[in-house]
């Protein structure tokens, strides 16, 4: 229990650090980006818009640094991220609200599939050495060194442009308007298949490899020998004695992997012009849309922290040793 509380506190601290980095970064940069940006838009803004913009940076030329900070914190808690330059004058929060669901759908589903499938394959590969799975492993090692978005490039070339099986870009057919109609949903799913496969293939190799190595190490443990000595069935030894212990590090490491996967997948979205956070990210970079960039950092951080928390809970359930600290 205490362990869980410690983790929660850690996440709170991390979130706070991310927010503070957002606050301090523009102020530490050479050339004072904030004033430059505010000046750029001055005169073109309504007072409310001007304020919203200032809110994005917590910028108030009349206040001290500390009170700016406090105001900034307050704004964040209210979801006030300011206005986006790219989609001016749309508030950043709307931009994110529109694109986040796409990313969660794509990323969330793909990552879960990749880790579950990868872990399962790793368990089997580690258990039955000398099967065809062992020859897949060098391929897995090779795949691990390739960034996800590059698979996207390959798939776009081959499956989309070359064979024409899948749409080349977009999240849905441009003739349809986003709604919950079956036609739209079908189109959305169709458009997400290629990006999803990209993410899955990119991350599955790492999971499989780690899990297989972990399985091999676990199988050398004494309690597995005991299980065999007890004359238990192979299945029972593999599942209850080997796998249940071997996946623990995978669960613990899952959340950290997620941070990496998030980064990689953002670029996949760019390759496919998929309307999620990644695509928005690209636009934001292109337009030097600092409020949006900051918000993306925060949103992705919070998402990863949540995933971490869920993984911690799962670990808590799976490993009895954590319950007594």
């Amino acid at each position, binding site marked *: 229990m205490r362990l869980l509380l410690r983790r929660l506190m850690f996440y709170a601290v991390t979130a706070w650090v991310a927010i503070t980095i957002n606050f301090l*970064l523009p102020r530490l940069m050479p050339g004072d980006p904030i004033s430059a940006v505010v000046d750029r838009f001055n005169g073109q803004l309504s007072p409310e818009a001007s304020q919203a913009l200032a809110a994005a940076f917590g910028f108030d030329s009349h206040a001290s640094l500390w009170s700016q900070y406090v105001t900034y914190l307050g704004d964040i808690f209210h979801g006030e991220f300011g206005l986006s330059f790219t989609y001016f004058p749309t508030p950043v929060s709307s931009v994110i609200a529109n694109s986040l669901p796409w990313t969660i759908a794509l990323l969330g589903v793909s990552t879960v599939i990749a880790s579950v499938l990868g872990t399962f394959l790793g368990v089997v590969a580690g258990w039955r050495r000398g099967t065809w799975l062992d020859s897949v492993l060098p391929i897995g090692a090779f795949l691990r*060194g390739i960034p996800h978005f590059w698979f996207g490039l390959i798939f776009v070339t081959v499956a989309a442009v070359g064979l024409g099986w899948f749409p080349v870009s977009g999240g849905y057919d441009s003739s349809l308007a986003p709604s919950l109609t079956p036609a739209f949903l079908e189109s959305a799913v169709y458009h997400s298949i290629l990006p999803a496969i990209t993410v899955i293939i990119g991350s599955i190799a790492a999971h499989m490899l780690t899990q297989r190595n972990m399985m*091999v190490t676990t199988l050398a443990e004494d309690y597995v020998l005991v299980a065999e000595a007890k004359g238990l069935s192979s299945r029972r030894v593999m599942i209850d004695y080997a796998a249940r212990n071997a996946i623990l590090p995978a669960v613990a490491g899952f959340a950290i992997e997620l*941070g990496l996967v998030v980064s990689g997948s953002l670029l996949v979205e760019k390759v496919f012009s998929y309307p999620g956070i990644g695509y928005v990210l690209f636009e934001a970079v292109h337009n030097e849309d600092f409020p949006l960039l900051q918000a993306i*950092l925060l949103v992705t*951080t919070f998402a990863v922290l949540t995933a971490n928390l869920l993984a911690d809970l799962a670990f808590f359930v799976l490993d009895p040793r954590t319950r007594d600290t």
Partner: protein
Amino acid sequence: MTAATITDAVSVAPAGRRFNRRTVLRSRKIKAGLVLIGIFVLMGVIGPWVSPYDPSANVAGTMLPPSLSHPFGTTALGEDVLSQVLSGTRLSLEVGVVAALIGETIAAIVGITAGYLGGLADEGLSLLTNIFLVIPILPLQILIIAYLGNTGWFLMALIIALTGWSHGSRKLRAQTLSIRRRDFVEAARAAGEPNWRIILFEILPNEWAIIATGFLFHVLSGIIVQTSLSFLGLGRLSSWSWGAMLYWSQNNNAFLVGAWWWYLPPGICLALVGMGLALVNLGIDEVINPRLRDGGRLPGRSGARRRRGDPVPAGQTGRSARKK
């Protein structure tokens, strides 16, 4: 003990195994990996001199598929793709290597100090490490470089190093923790050996494998990050790199029209370098942890003794049964 610590202690290979230099050199994986890496290092060094054309010059028709005079075709501006690949290798590799050197050094300092000193120093440094582990690094890197504007390769490498050191630090801390409790370290401390000597001469030598694999992994991730960042349009796009090529190709709709010769070569280069580094890493892993080597199975002398049906898990006898 947090979940993270359990992970580290278990997934880290046993320390102190005296490595047989011959085994390292004999490993096929390592040799193959080094060859691959060597090729690209060579390309990086002599690339700009051997490219047939100036990569930024308009030398032919636009968007031409590969041909004898342009083995990788041309871009939308009539530039020779092969020349771009050759010239761009240097920058892509430079950023990766420098980022890894700086990053791994930071990781070593933070990780080993935390593992060795323990107590408050450990708590503080671990907190720092964990924070940077959890925060998605790419958005952070993007933000910083966007603010900085027109960044040269060294600055980019520095940023990558300063944000990406935490993985290595975590592993090194776990390993240092387990080594520190060993008898030979206790003996050194009891003999009054100063801390810095213990770290340099007792602890570091036992961590060579982790540092080596961490460094290589870092190089790879540095190259990937630089490519990704350039792909997004950050950094100085006027200098050629693999990522810059990807950026320009997508910007000119190469993806949509299927001008694969433009964007696939930089990707393939990246993949091959990645494969080389991954192979060397795998090889080092196997040297350190012999159980992972595929030679774990032996042909039974009399076939009747060990039946295929027996669950014969891989690996040697458990700790208690060894050496009796």
